[in-house]
Protein backbone atom coordinates (compact mmCIF):
# COMPACT_ATOMS: atom_id res chain seq x y z
CA UNK A 1 0.00 0.00 0.00
CA UNK A 2 1.47 3.39 -0.92
CA UNK A 3 2.32 6.10 1.56
CA UNK A 4 0.91 8.90 -0.51
CA UNK A 5 0.72 11.89 1.75
CA UNK A 6 2.01 13.64 4.83
CA UNK A 7 -0.54 12.05 7.14
CA UNK A 8 0.08 8.51 6.00
CA UNK A 9 3.87 8.90 6.30
CA UNK A 10 3.68 10.35 9.79
CA UNK A 11 0.91 7.90 10.71
CA UNK A 12 3.07 4.96 9.71
CA UNK A 13 5.96 6.40 11.73
CA UNK A 14 3.74 6.69 14.78
CA UNK A 15 2.56 3.08 14.38
CA UNK A 16 6.14 1.91 13.92
CA UNK A 17 7.23 3.67 17.10
CA UNK A 18 4.35 2.14 19.04
CA UNK A 19 5.38 -1.29 17.82
CA UNK A 20 8.97 -0.59 18.87
CA UNK A 21 7.79 0.66 22.26
CA UNK A 22 5.63 -2.42 22.85
CA UNK A 23 8.54 -4.69 22.07
CA UNK A 24 11.03 -2.77 24.21
CA UNK A 25 8.55 -2.77 27.11
CA UNK A 26 8.06 -6.49 26.87
CA UNK A 27 11.85 -7.01 26.60
CA UNK A 28 12.42 -4.94 29.73
CA UNK A 29 9.97 -7.16 31.60
CA UNK A 30 11.59 -10.40 30.47
CA UNK A 31 13.59 -11.97 33.33
CA UNK A 32 16.42 -12.99 30.99
CA UNK A 33 17.01 -9.34 30.13
CA UNK A 34 17.40 -8.17 33.74
CA UNK A 35 21.07 -7.49 33.16
CA UNK A 36 20.16 -5.12 30.33
CA UNK A 37 17.47 -3.19 32.18
CA UNK A 38 19.06 0.22 31.69
CA UNK A 39 19.55 -0.42 27.97
CA UNK A 40 15.88 -1.25 27.43
CA UNK A 41 14.75 1.54 29.76
CA UNK A 42 16.67 3.91 27.51
CA UNK A 43 15.04 2.51 24.38
CA UNK A 44 11.61 2.82 25.99
CA UNK A 45 12.26 6.40 27.00
CA UNK A 46 13.45 7.23 23.48
CA UNK A 47 10.47 5.59 21.79
CA UNK A 48 8.06 7.52 23.98
CA UNK A 49 9.88 10.72 23.11
CA UNK A 50 9.83 9.80 19.41
CA UNK A 51 6.05 9.34 19.48
CA UNK A 52 5.65 12.79 20.99
CA UNK A 53 8.04 14.27 18.43
CA UNK A 54 6.10 12.72 15.56
CA UNK A 55 2.74 13.89 16.90
CA UNK A 56 4.08 17.40 17.48
CA UNK A 57 5.66 17.50 14.03
CA UNK A 58 2.38 16.43 12.45
CA UNK A 59 0.39 18.98 14.43
CA UNK A 60 2.69 21.88 13.76
CA UNK A 61 3.47 21.29 10.11
CA UNK A 62 0.28 20.09 8.49
CA UNK A 63 -0.88 22.68 5.96
CA UNK A 64 -2.66 22.63 2.62
CA UNK A 65 0.65 22.48 0.82
CA UNK A 66 1.68 19.41 2.68
CA UNK A 67 -1.43 17.60 1.53
CA UNK A 68 -0.02 17.38 -1.96
CA UNK A 69 0.52 13.80 -3.02
CA UNK A 70 3.78 11.91 -2.76
CA UNK A 71 4.84 9.17 -5.14
CA UNK A 72 7.05 6.10 -4.98
CA UNK A 73 6.88 5.35 -1.27
CA UNK A 74 5.34 2.13 0.01
CA UNK A 75 4.76 0.70 3.47
CA UNK A 76 5.43 -2.97 2.65
CA UNK A 77 9.26 -2.88 2.94
CA UNK A 78 8.87 -1.46 6.44
CA UNK A 79 6.17 -3.74 7.81
CA UNK A 80 7.50 -6.19 10.40
CA UNK A 81 5.63 -8.82 12.34
CA UNK A 82 7.12 -9.23 15.81
CA UNK A 83 6.54 -11.73 18.55
CA UNK A 84 6.42 -10.60 22.14
CA UNK A 85 9.74 -10.76 23.94
CA UNK A 86 8.61 -13.10 26.77
CA UNK A 87 8.48 -15.95 24.26
CA UNK A 88 12.09 -15.40 23.17
CA UNK A 89 15.53 -15.98 24.53
CA UNK A 90 17.92 -13.09 25.07
CA UNK A 91 19.61 -13.55 21.68
CA UNK A 92 16.22 -13.49 19.97
CA UNK A 93 15.23 -10.35 21.84
CA UNK A 94 18.42 -8.53 20.85
CA UNK A 95 18.07 -9.70 17.25
CA UNK A 96 14.46 -8.52 17.02
CA UNK A 97 15.29 -5.22 18.68
CA UNK A 98 18.09 -4.73 16.16
CA UNK A 99 15.76 -5.52 13.27
CA UNK A 100 13.17 -3.06 14.53
CA UNK A 101 15.77 -0.34 14.96
CA UNK A 102 17.31 -0.96 11.53
CA UNK A 103 13.86 -0.80 9.99
CA UNK A 104 13.25 2.51 11.73
CA UNK A 105 16.55 3.94 10.47
CA UNK A 106 15.67 2.94 6.90
CA UNK A 107 12.16 4.33 7.19
CA UNK A 108 13.18 7.68 8.60
CA UNK A 109 15.91 8.01 5.99
CA UNK A 110 13.52 7.45 3.09
CA UNK A 111 10.66 9.42 4.62
CA UNK A 112 12.96 12.40 5.20
CA UNK A 113 13.78 12.43 1.49
CA UNK A 114 10.13 12.15 0.47
CA UNK A 115 9.23 15.11 2.68
CA UNK A 116 12.35 17.13 1.94
CA UNK A 117 10.20 20.04 0.74
CA UNK A 118 9.16 20.48 4.37
CA UNK A 119 12.46 21.11 6.08
CA UNK A 120 11.08 21.05 9.63
CA UNK A 121 9.49 17.67 9.05
CA UNK A 122 12.41 16.28 7.12
CA UNK A 123 14.79 17.46 9.85
CA UNK A 124 12.75 15.77 12.57
CA UNK A 125 12.69 12.49 10.66
CA UNK A 126 16.43 12.65 10.03
CA UNK A 127 17.02 13.26 13.73
CA UNK A 128 14.91 10.28 14.69
CA UNK A 129 16.97 8.14 12.32
CA UNK A 130 20.18 9.46 13.88
CA UNK A 131 18.95 8.68 17.37
CA UNK A 132 18.18 5.13 16.33
CA UNK A 133 21.66 4.77 14.86
CA UNK A 134 23.02 5.64 18.30
CA UNK A 135 20.62 3.15 19.88
CA UNK A 136 21.80 0.47 17.48
CA UNK A 137 25.38 1.02 18.55
CA UNK A 138 24.33 0.52 22.17
CA UNK A 139 22.50 -2.69 21.39
CA UNK A 140 25.28 -5.06 22.33
CA UNK A 141 25.24 -7.76 24.95
Amino acid sequence: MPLINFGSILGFAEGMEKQNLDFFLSAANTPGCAAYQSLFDGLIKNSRKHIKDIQRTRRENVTEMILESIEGFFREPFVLETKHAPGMDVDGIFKTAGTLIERSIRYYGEAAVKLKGQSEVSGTLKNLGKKYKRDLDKLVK
Partner: protein
Amino acid sequence: MTLPVIKNYIDGEWVESNTEVFGDIMNPALGEKIAQVPYGTKEDVDMAVAAARKAYPEWRKTPPITRARYLFRLKEAFEEQFEEIAEILTTEQGKAIDESRGEVRRMIENVEHATGVTTMMTGYCLEDIAKGVDCSLQRQPMGVFAAIAPYNFPGMVPWWFLPYAIVTGNTFILKPSEQVPMTQAKVFEIIDGVGFPEGVVNTVNGSRDVVNALLDHPDIEGISFVGATPTAKYIYERCGATGKRVQALGGAKNIVAIMPDAKIDAAMPSLITSFFGCAGQRCLSGSILAPVGEVADELIEKFISSTKAMKIGSGLDEQTGMGPVISGAHRDRILAYIEKGIEEGADLILDGRDFSHPDFPNGYFVGPTIFDNVTPDMTIAKEEIFGPVVSIVRAKTLDDVVDLINTRGFANAACVYTQNAAVVRQFKYQVNPAMIGVNIGIAAPMSFFPFGGSGNSMFGDLKGHGREIFQFYTDAKVVIERYF
Protein backbone atom coordinates in the same frame (compact mmCIF):
# COMPACT_ATOMS: atom_id res chain seq x y z
CA MET B 1 -30.47 4.12 19.86
CA THR B 2 -30.74 7.60 21.36
CA LEU B 3 -28.58 10.10 19.55
CA PRO B 4 -26.58 12.66 21.50
CA VAL B 5 -28.05 16.15 21.38
CA ILE B 6 -25.78 19.19 21.04
CA LYS B 7 -26.26 21.81 23.76
CA ASN B 8 -25.72 25.53 23.84
CA TYR B 9 -22.94 27.02 25.94
CA ILE B 10 -24.18 30.13 27.65
CA ASP B 11 -22.83 32.01 30.67
CA GLY B 12 -20.27 29.30 31.34
CA GLU B 13 -22.84 26.51 31.41
CA TRP B 14 -24.05 23.85 29.00
CA VAL B 15 -27.75 24.49 28.56
CA GLU B 16 -30.46 22.86 26.52
CA SER B 17 -32.18 24.93 23.89
CA ASN B 18 -35.82 25.70 24.57
CA THR B 19 -36.72 24.65 21.03
CA GLU B 20 -38.81 21.66 20.08
CA VAL B 21 -37.29 21.45 16.62
CA PHE B 22 -34.14 19.43 16.02
CA GLY B 23 -32.07 18.56 12.98
CA ASP B 24 -29.95 15.52 12.28
CA ILE B 25 -26.19 15.66 12.11
CA MET B 26 -24.95 13.16 9.55
CA ASN B 27 -21.72 11.31 8.95
CA PRO B 28 -21.46 12.07 5.21
CA ALA B 29 -19.17 9.13 4.48
CA LEU B 30 -21.66 6.68 5.95
CA GLY B 31 -24.88 8.56 5.30
CA GLU B 32 -25.83 7.89 8.93
CA LYS B 33 -27.21 10.07 11.70
CA ILE B 34 -24.67 10.62 14.46
CA ALA B 35 -26.24 13.33 16.63
CA GLN B 36 -28.96 15.93 16.78
CA VAL B 37 -28.75 19.68 16.83
CA PRO B 38 -31.38 22.01 18.27
CA TYR B 39 -32.75 24.63 15.91
CA GLY B 40 -32.57 27.29 18.57
CA THR B 41 -34.86 30.21 19.14
CA LYS B 42 -34.83 33.94 19.70
CA GLU B 43 -35.06 33.18 23.43
CA ASP B 44 -31.82 31.19 23.24
CA VAL B 45 -30.15 34.15 21.55
CA ASP B 46 -31.57 36.59 24.10
CA MET B 47 -30.15 34.46 26.89
CA ALA B 48 -26.70 34.36 25.26
CA VAL B 49 -26.66 38.08 24.54
CA ALA B 50 -27.69 38.85 28.11
CA ALA B 51 -24.85 36.69 29.43
CA ALA B 52 -22.34 38.25 27.05
CA ARG B 53 -23.51 41.73 27.88
CA LYS B 54 -23.31 41.05 31.62
CA ALA B 55 -19.74 39.74 31.23
CA TYR B 56 -18.54 42.62 29.08
CA PRO B 57 -17.76 45.38 31.65
CA GLU B 58 -15.41 43.22 33.75
CA TRP B 59 -13.86 41.53 30.73
CA ARG B 60 -13.20 44.88 29.13
CA LYS B 61 -11.33 45.99 32.25
CA THR B 62 -9.20 42.86 32.23
CA PRO B 63 -5.75 43.87 30.95
CA PRO B 64 -5.07 42.74 27.38
CA ILE B 65 -2.06 40.71 28.49
CA THR B 66 -4.26 38.85 30.96
CA ARG B 67 -6.85 38.23 28.28
CA ALA B 68 -4.09 36.90 26.05
CA ARG B 69 -3.04 34.47 28.77
CA TYR B 70 -6.40 32.74 28.49
CA LEU B 71 -5.57 32.22 24.83
CA PHE B 72 -2.14 30.81 25.65
CA ARG B 73 -3.86 28.27 27.88
CA LEU B 74 -6.37 27.57 25.16
CA LYS B 75 -3.64 26.98 22.59
CA GLU B 76 -1.98 24.43 24.84
CA ALA B 77 -5.30 22.68 25.43
CA PHE B 78 -5.98 22.59 21.68
CA GLU B 79 -2.54 21.09 21.04
CA GLU B 80 -3.25 18.38 23.59
CA GLN B 81 -6.56 17.46 22.00
CA PHE B 82 -5.53 18.15 18.43
CA GLU B 83 -6.19 14.68 17.04
CA GLU B 84 -9.54 14.35 18.76
CA ILE B 85 -10.76 17.63 17.29
CA ALA B 86 -9.53 16.60 13.83
CA GLU B 87 -11.29 13.24 14.02
CA ILE B 88 -14.61 14.78 15.06
CA LEU B 89 -14.24 17.29 12.24
CA THR B 90 -13.70 14.59 9.62
CA THR B 91 -16.52 12.48 11.03
CA GLU B 92 -19.12 15.19 10.68
CA GLN B 93 -17.76 17.07 7.67
CA GLY B 94 -16.25 14.27 5.58
CA LYS B 95 -12.95 15.84 4.55
CA ALA B 96 -9.69 13.90 4.59
CA ILE B 97 -8.11 13.62 8.03
CA ASP B 98 -4.99 15.54 6.98
CA GLU B 99 -7.23 18.36 5.78
CA SER B 100 -8.90 18.36 9.18
CA ARG B 101 -5.52 18.43 10.88
CA GLY B 102 -4.56 21.34 8.65
CA GLU B 103 -7.77 23.07 9.62
CA VAL B 104 -7.15 22.60 13.34
CA ARG B 105 -3.64 23.95 12.78
CA ARG B 106 -5.11 27.06 11.12
CA MET B 107 -7.52 27.39 14.02
CA ILE B 108 -4.63 27.37 16.49
CA GLU B 109 -2.64 29.82 14.38
CA ASN B 110 -5.44 32.32 14.84
CA VAL B 111 -5.21 31.87 18.58
CA GLU B 112 -1.45 32.42 18.32
CA HIS B 113 -1.88 35.56 16.22
CA ALA B 114 -4.53 36.94 18.59
CA THR B 115 -2.12 36.71 21.51
CA GLY B 116 -0.24 39.60 19.89
CA VAL B 117 -2.99 41.90 21.13
CA THR B 118 -0.64 44.05 23.19
CA THR B 119 1.02 45.12 19.96
CA MET B 120 -1.89 44.87 17.55
CA MET B 121 -4.37 46.84 19.64
CA THR B 122 -2.13 49.77 20.48
CA GLY B 123 -3.00 53.21 19.26
CA TYR B 124 -0.78 56.13 18.42
CA CYS B 125 -0.27 59.72 19.44
CA LEU B 126 1.26 62.95 18.26
CA GLU B 127 2.33 65.83 20.41
CA ASP B 128 1.67 69.41 19.40
CA ILE B 129 -0.87 68.92 16.65
CA ALA B 130 -1.37 72.58 17.47
CA LYS B 131 0.69 74.55 19.93
CA GLY B 132 0.34 72.87 23.31
CA VAL B 133 -2.25 70.43 22.04
CA ASP B 134 -1.66 66.68 21.89
CA CYS B 135 -3.69 64.09 20.06
CA SER B 136 -3.92 60.36 20.62
CA LEU B 137 -5.87 57.45 19.26
CA GLN B 138 -6.80 54.51 21.42
CA ARG B 139 -8.61 51.37 20.44
CA GLN B 140 -11.50 50.29 22.61
CA PRO B 141 -13.64 47.16 22.58
CA MET B 142 -17.28 47.72 21.76
CA GLY B 143 -19.40 45.07 23.45
CA VAL B 144 -20.97 41.88 22.17
CA PHE B 145 -20.04 40.42 18.79
CA ALA B 146 -21.32 37.31 17.03
CA ALA B 147 -20.22 35.05 14.19
CA ILE B 148 -22.18 32.75 11.92
CA ALA B 149 -20.08 29.91 10.54
CA PRO B 150 -20.33 27.69 7.45
CA TYR B 151 -20.24 23.90 7.10
CA ASN B 152 -17.08 23.55 5.04
CA PHE B 153 -14.62 24.61 7.77
CA PRO B 154 -16.32 23.83 11.09
CA GLY B 155 -13.07 24.11 13.01
CA MET B 156 -11.19 26.99 11.49
CA VAL B 157 -13.67 29.64 10.38
CA PRO B 158 -15.15 30.45 13.82
CA TRP B 159 -11.58 31.06 14.93
CA TRP B 160 -11.01 33.71 12.27
CA PHE B 161 -13.13 35.81 14.63
CA LEU B 162 -13.56 34.45 18.14
CA PRO B 163 -10.02 34.85 19.55
CA TYR B 164 -9.67 38.39 18.18
CA ALA B 165 -13.07 39.47 19.47
CA ILE B 166 -12.39 38.37 23.00
CA VAL B 167 -8.72 39.29 23.23
CA THR B 168 -9.63 42.87 22.32
CA GLY B 169 -12.05 42.90 25.24
CA ASN B 170 -15.38 42.12 23.62
CA THR B 171 -17.62 39.21 24.48
CA PHE B 172 -18.76 36.74 21.88
CA ILE B 173 -21.50 34.46 20.60
CA LEU B 174 -20.90 31.79 18.00
CA LYS B 175 -23.51 30.12 15.88
CA PRO B 176 -21.88 27.05 14.32
CA SER B 177 -23.27 25.55 11.14
CA GLU B 178 -26.24 23.37 11.98
CA GLN B 179 -24.81 20.70 9.68
CA VAL B 180 -21.49 20.42 11.55
CA PRO B 181 -21.82 21.70 15.13
CA MET B 182 -19.94 18.84 16.82
CA THR B 183 -16.46 20.22 16.21
CA GLN B 184 -17.24 23.45 18.02
CA ALA B 185 -19.10 21.54 20.73
CA LYS B 186 -15.79 19.78 21.39
CA VAL B 187 -13.89 23.06 21.14
CA PHE B 188 -16.25 24.66 23.66
CA GLU B 189 -15.66 21.76 26.03
CA ILE B 190 -12.01 22.74 25.89
CA ILE B 191 -12.91 26.42 26.35
CA ASP B 192 -14.93 25.43 29.39
CA GLY B 193 -11.87 23.71 30.82
CA VAL B 194 -9.70 26.77 30.32
CA GLY B 195 -11.91 28.75 32.69
CA PHE B 196 -12.90 31.92 30.90
CA PRO B 197 -15.10 34.18 33.00
CA GLU B 198 -18.76 33.30 32.56
CA GLY B 199 -20.42 34.83 29.54
CA VAL B 200 -17.26 35.87 27.70
CA VAL B 201 -17.72 33.13 25.08
CA ASN B 202 -21.05 31.57 24.23
CA THR B 203 -22.48 29.36 21.54
CA VAL B 204 -26.04 29.08 20.31
CA ASN B 205 -26.96 26.33 17.89
CA GLY B 206 -29.62 26.68 15.31
CA SER B 207 -30.58 27.77 11.86
CA ARG B 208 -32.38 30.72 10.29
CA ASP B 209 -34.25 31.81 13.44
CA VAL B 210 -31.02 32.08 15.38
CA VAL B 211 -29.35 33.98 12.55
CA ASN B 212 -32.17 36.48 12.33
CA ALA B 213 -32.27 36.92 16.09
CA LEU B 214 -28.56 37.70 16.07
CA LEU B 215 -28.86 40.10 13.15
CA ASP B 216 -31.72 42.01 14.74
CA HIS B 217 -30.55 42.04 18.34
CA PRO B 218 -29.97 45.62 19.49
CA ASP B 219 -27.25 44.62 21.96
CA ILE B 220 -24.99 43.02 19.37
CA GLU B 221 -22.39 45.40 17.93
CA GLY B 222 -21.23 43.42 14.95
CA ILE B 223 -21.56 40.24 12.94
CA SER B 224 -19.03 38.11 11.08
CA PHE B 225 -20.35 35.68 8.53
CA VAL B 226 -18.93 33.16 6.08
CA GLY B 227 -21.15 31.29 3.65
CA ALA B 228 -22.94 31.57 0.33
CA THR B 229 -23.20 34.90 -1.49
CA PRO B 230 -26.99 35.37 -1.31
CA THR B 231 -26.89 34.87 2.45
CA ALA B 232 -23.83 37.11 2.80
CA LYS B 233 -25.66 39.86 0.97
CA TYR B 234 -28.77 39.36 3.08
CA ILE B 235 -26.73 39.55 6.27
CA TYR B 236 -24.89 42.64 5.08
CA GLU B 237 -28.12 44.43 4.27
CA ARG B 238 -29.89 43.39 7.47
CA CYS B 239 -26.93 44.40 9.61
CA GLY B 240 -26.87 47.72 7.80
CA ALA B 241 -30.50 48.21 8.69
CA THR B 242 -29.77 47.61 12.37
CA GLY B 243 -26.56 49.65 12.40
CA LYS B 244 -24.12 46.84 13.04
CA ARG B 245 -20.60 46.36 11.90
CA VAL B 246 -20.49 43.49 9.47
CA GLN B 247 -18.05 41.38 7.52
CA ALA B 248 -19.93 38.92 5.30
CA LEU B 249 -17.77 36.61 3.23
CA GLY B 250 -19.57 34.95 0.34
CA GLY B 251 -19.02 32.47 -2.45
CA ALA B 252 -16.52 32.20 -5.24
CA LYS B 253 -15.77 31.11 -8.77
CA ASN B 254 -12.01 30.81 -8.68
CA ILE B 255 -10.00 30.56 -11.86
CA VAL B 256 -6.62 28.91 -12.13
CA ALA B 257 -4.64 30.05 -15.17
CA ILE B 258 -1.89 27.86 -16.59
CA MET B 259 0.57 29.71 -18.79
CA PRO B 260 2.56 27.95 -21.53
CA ASP B 261 5.77 28.18 -19.47
CA ALA B 262 4.22 26.68 -16.33
CA LYS B 263 6.03 23.74 -14.78
CA ILE B 264 3.15 21.35 -15.12
CA ASP B 265 4.60 18.34 -13.34
CA ALA B 266 5.58 20.41 -10.33
CA ALA B 267 2.21 22.14 -10.40
CA MET B 268 0.07 19.03 -10.63
CA PRO B 269 -0.18 18.03 -6.93
CA SER B 270 -1.25 21.54 -5.96
CA LEU B 271 -3.75 21.68 -8.81
CA ILE B 272 -5.35 18.45 -7.66
CA THR B 273 -5.55 19.77 -4.10
CA SER B 274 -7.00 23.03 -5.35
CA PHE B 275 -9.85 21.49 -7.33
CA PHE B 276 -10.63 18.41 -5.26
CA GLY B 277 -9.54 19.18 -1.69
CA CYS B 278 -12.54 19.17 0.65
CA ALA B 279 -14.43 17.74 -2.36
CA GLY B 280 -14.38 21.20 -3.91
CA GLN B 281 -16.33 22.69 -1.01
CA ARG B 282 -13.96 25.55 -0.29
CA CYS B 283 -14.35 29.19 -1.15
CA LEU B 284 -10.73 29.02 -2.32
CA SER B 285 -11.14 25.88 -4.44
CA GLY B 286 -10.22 26.07 -8.07
CA SER B 287 -13.36 25.87 -10.16
CA ILE B 288 -12.26 26.90 -13.64
CA LEU B 289 -8.99 25.62 -15.08
CA ALA B 290 -7.83 28.00 -17.79
CA PRO B 291 -4.88 26.77 -19.85
CA VAL B 292 -3.45 29.46 -22.09
CA GLY B 293 -2.38 28.54 -25.62
CA GLU B 294 -0.61 25.33 -26.53
CA VAL B 295 -0.21 24.06 -22.97
CA ALA B 296 -3.83 22.85 -22.88
CA ASP B 297 -3.58 19.32 -24.26
CA GLU B 298 -0.59 18.27 -22.18
CA LEU B 299 -2.06 19.86 -19.08
CA ILE B 300 -5.44 18.19 -19.50
CA GLU B 301 -3.92 14.76 -20.10
CA LYS B 302 -1.80 14.99 -16.94
CA PHE B 303 -4.60 16.53 -14.92
CA ILE B 304 -6.96 13.68 -15.77
CA SER B 305 -4.28 11.11 -15.01
CA SER B 306 -3.55 12.63 -11.59
CA THR B 307 -7.24 12.97 -10.84
CA LYS B 308 -7.84 9.30 -11.57
CA ALA B 309 -4.97 8.35 -9.24
CA MET B 310 -6.63 10.11 -6.30
CA LYS B 311 -8.22 7.81 -3.75
CA ILE B 312 -11.79 8.59 -2.82
CA GLY B 313 -13.26 7.31 0.41
CA SER B 314 -13.77 7.94 4.09
CA GLY B 315 -11.81 10.91 5.33
CA LEU B 316 -10.71 8.89 8.35
CA ASP B 317 -8.58 6.68 6.08
CA GLU B 318 -5.10 8.24 5.88
CA GLN B 319 -4.87 7.26 2.22
CA THR B 320 -7.95 9.19 1.17
CA GLY B 321 -7.42 12.17 -1.09
CA MET B 322 -11.06 13.17 -1.40
CA GLY B 323 -14.00 12.43 0.86
CA PRO B 324 -17.76 12.81 0.38
CA VAL B 325 -19.69 16.05 0.03
CA ILE B 326 -21.63 17.33 2.99
CA SER B 327 -25.12 15.94 2.33
CA GLY B 328 -27.39 14.10 -0.04
CA ALA B 329 -29.11 17.35 -0.92
CA HIS B 330 -25.81 18.98 -1.80
CA ARG B 331 -24.77 15.95 -3.86
CA ASP B 332 -28.02 16.30 -5.83
CA ARG B 333 -27.31 19.98 -6.38
CA ILE B 334 -23.84 19.19 -7.76
CA LEU B 335 -25.26 16.47 -10.00
CA ALA B 336 -27.78 18.96 -11.35
CA TYR B 337 -24.91 21.27 -12.31
CA ILE B 338 -23.21 18.41 -14.15
CA GLU B 339 -26.42 17.76 -16.09
CA LYS B 340 -26.60 21.46 -16.88
CA GLY B 341 -23.04 21.40 -18.23
CA ILE B 342 -23.90 18.52 -20.54
CA GLU B 343 -27.11 20.21 -21.62
CA GLU B 344 -25.30 23.44 -22.48
CA GLY B 345 -22.76 21.66 -24.64
CA ALA B 346 -19.60 21.27 -22.56
CA ASP B 347 -17.55 18.11 -23.17
CA LEU B 348 -17.71 15.77 -20.18
CA ILE B 349 -14.28 14.17 -20.22
CA LEU B 350 -14.36 12.67 -16.73
CA ASP B 351 -17.74 11.69 -15.34
CA GLY B 352 -18.16 11.38 -11.58
CA ARG B 353 -21.93 11.08 -11.52
CA ASP B 354 -22.13 7.36 -10.97
CA PHE B 355 -19.36 7.06 -8.43
CA SER B 356 -20.20 4.69 -5.64
CA HIS B 357 -17.84 3.53 -2.93
CA PRO B 358 -18.13 -0.21 -2.25
CA ASP B 359 -17.47 0.19 1.48
CA PHE B 360 -19.67 3.25 1.88
CA PRO B 361 -22.67 2.71 -0.39
CA ASN B 362 -24.78 5.27 1.47
CA GLY B 363 -22.11 7.96 1.57
CA TYR B 364 -22.60 11.27 -0.22
CA PHE B 365 -19.91 10.81 -2.80
CA VAL B 366 -19.53 12.57 -6.11
CA GLY B 367 -16.65 11.40 -8.26
CA PRO B 368 -14.24 13.95 -9.70
CA THR B 369 -15.80 15.45 -12.79
CA ILE B 370 -14.09 17.39 -15.57
CA PHE B 371 -15.63 19.34 -18.41
CA ASP B 372 -13.57 20.51 -21.38
CA ASN B 373 -14.39 23.24 -23.87
CA VAL B 374 -16.50 25.17 -21.40
CA THR B 375 -17.37 28.66 -22.57
CA PRO B 376 -17.63 31.70 -20.27
CA ASP B 377 -21.38 32.02 -20.76
CA MET B 378 -22.22 28.49 -19.60
CA THR B 379 -23.87 28.07 -16.21
CA ILE B 380 -21.03 25.88 -14.92
CA ALA B 381 -18.60 28.71 -15.72
CA LYS B 382 -20.68 31.32 -13.93
CA GLU B 383 -22.20 29.82 -10.81
CA GLU B 384 -20.56 28.43 -7.69
CA ILE B 385 -20.92 24.64 -7.77
CA PHE B 386 -19.07 23.93 -4.51
CA GLY B 387 -18.21 20.40 -5.53
CA PRO B 388 -15.53 18.34 -7.30
CA VAL B 389 -16.41 19.64 -10.75
CA VAL B 390 -13.77 21.26 -12.95
CA SER B 391 -14.64 23.45 -15.92
CA ILE B 392 -11.82 23.84 -18.42
CA VAL B 393 -12.01 27.07 -20.36
CA ARG B 394 -9.30 27.15 -22.99
CA ALA B 395 -7.87 30.64 -23.41
CA LYS B 396 -5.76 32.09 -26.19
CA THR B 397 -4.04 34.82 -24.19
CA LEU B 398 -3.55 36.05 -20.65
CA ASP B 399 -5.86 38.94 -21.48
CA ASP B 400 -8.61 36.40 -22.16
CA VAL B 401 -8.08 34.89 -18.72
CA VAL B 402 -8.10 38.29 -17.02
CA ASP B 403 -11.33 39.07 -18.80
CA LEU B 404 -12.79 35.72 -17.78
CA ILE B 405 -11.86 36.34 -14.13
CA ASN B 406 -13.20 39.88 -14.07
CA THR B 407 -16.56 39.01 -15.57
CA ARG B 408 -17.57 36.31 -13.04
CA GLY B 409 -19.04 38.69 -10.48
CA PHE B 410 -17.38 36.70 -7.75
CA ALA B 411 -13.92 37.96 -6.90
CA ASN B 412 -12.55 35.78 -4.18
CA ALA B 413 -9.33 34.18 -5.42
CA ALA B 414 -7.39 33.66 -8.64
CA CYS B 415 -4.22 31.73 -9.34
CA VAL B 416 -1.65 31.72 -12.10
CA TYR B 417 1.03 29.15 -12.83
CA THR B 418 4.02 30.61 -14.66
CA GLN B 419 7.73 31.34 -14.27
CA ASN B 420 7.35 34.72 -15.96
CA ALA B 421 7.40 37.71 -13.58
CA ALA B 422 5.90 40.05 -16.15
CA VAL B 423 2.91 37.77 -16.49
CA VAL B 424 2.56 37.63 -12.73
CA ARG B 425 2.68 41.39 -12.48
CA GLN B 426 -0.01 41.84 -15.11
CA PHE B 427 -2.13 39.16 -13.48
CA LYS B 428 -2.05 40.50 -9.95
CA TYR B 429 -2.39 44.08 -11.19
CA GLN B 430 -5.44 43.50 -13.37
CA VAL B 431 -7.60 40.82 -11.78
CA ASN B 432 -10.34 41.76 -9.33
CA PRO B 433 -10.12 38.94 -6.77
CA ALA B 434 -8.42 39.86 -3.53
CA MET B 435 -6.51 36.64 -2.87
CA ILE B 436 -3.94 35.73 -5.49
CA GLY B 437 -1.86 32.58 -5.83
CA VAL B 438 1.28 32.43 -7.93
CA ASN B 439 2.16 28.80 -8.53
CA ILE B 440 -0.13 28.16 -5.55
CA GLY B 441 -3.50 26.48 -6.07
CA ILE B 442 -5.15 27.54 -2.82
CA ALA B 443 -4.41 31.18 -2.15
CA ALA B 444 -5.23 30.96 1.55
CA PRO B 445 -3.87 33.78 3.67
CA MET B 446 -2.58 32.65 7.03
CA SER B 447 -3.88 34.16 10.24
CA PHE B 448 -1.54 37.15 10.15
CA PHE B 449 -2.83 38.28 6.73
CA PRO B 450 -6.42 39.23 5.94
CA PHE B 451 -8.85 36.73 4.46
CA GLY B 452 -11.62 37.92 2.20
CA GLY B 453 -12.51 38.61 -1.40
CA SER B 454 -14.04 41.43 -3.35
CA GLY B 455 -17.07 41.89 -5.57
CA ASN B 456 -19.81 39.40 -4.79
CA SER B 457 -17.43 37.40 -2.66
CA MET B 458 -17.36 39.82 0.24
CA PHE B 459 -19.69 42.39 1.70
CA GLY B 460 -18.11 44.72 4.21
CA ASP B 461 -14.88 46.59 4.58
CA LEU B 462 -12.64 44.83 7.05
CA LYS B 463 -11.70 41.24 6.33
CA GLY B 464 -11.19 38.16 8.48
CA HIS B 465 -8.07 37.86 10.67
CA GLY B 466 -4.84 39.62 9.74
CA ARG B 467 -4.26 43.10 11.13
CA GLU B 468 -7.66 44.37 10.01
CA ILE B 469 -9.55 42.15 12.41
CA PHE B 470 -8.20 44.17 15.33
CA GLN B 471 -9.86 47.20 13.75
CA PHE B 472 -13.11 45.35 13.19
CA TYR B 473 -13.37 44.51 16.85
CA THR B 474 -12.37 47.90 18.22
CA ASP B 475 -13.49 51.46 17.94
CA ALA B 476 -10.88 54.14 17.33
CA LYS B 477 -11.27 56.84 19.93
CA VAL B 478 -9.35 60.04 19.28
CA VAL B 479 -8.48 62.29 22.23
CA ILE B 480 -7.37 65.86 21.67
CA GLU B 481 -6.07 67.45 24.84
CA ARG B 482 -4.45 70.54 26.26
CA TYR B 483 -3.90 71.91 29.77
CA PHE B 484 -3.95 75.48 31.00
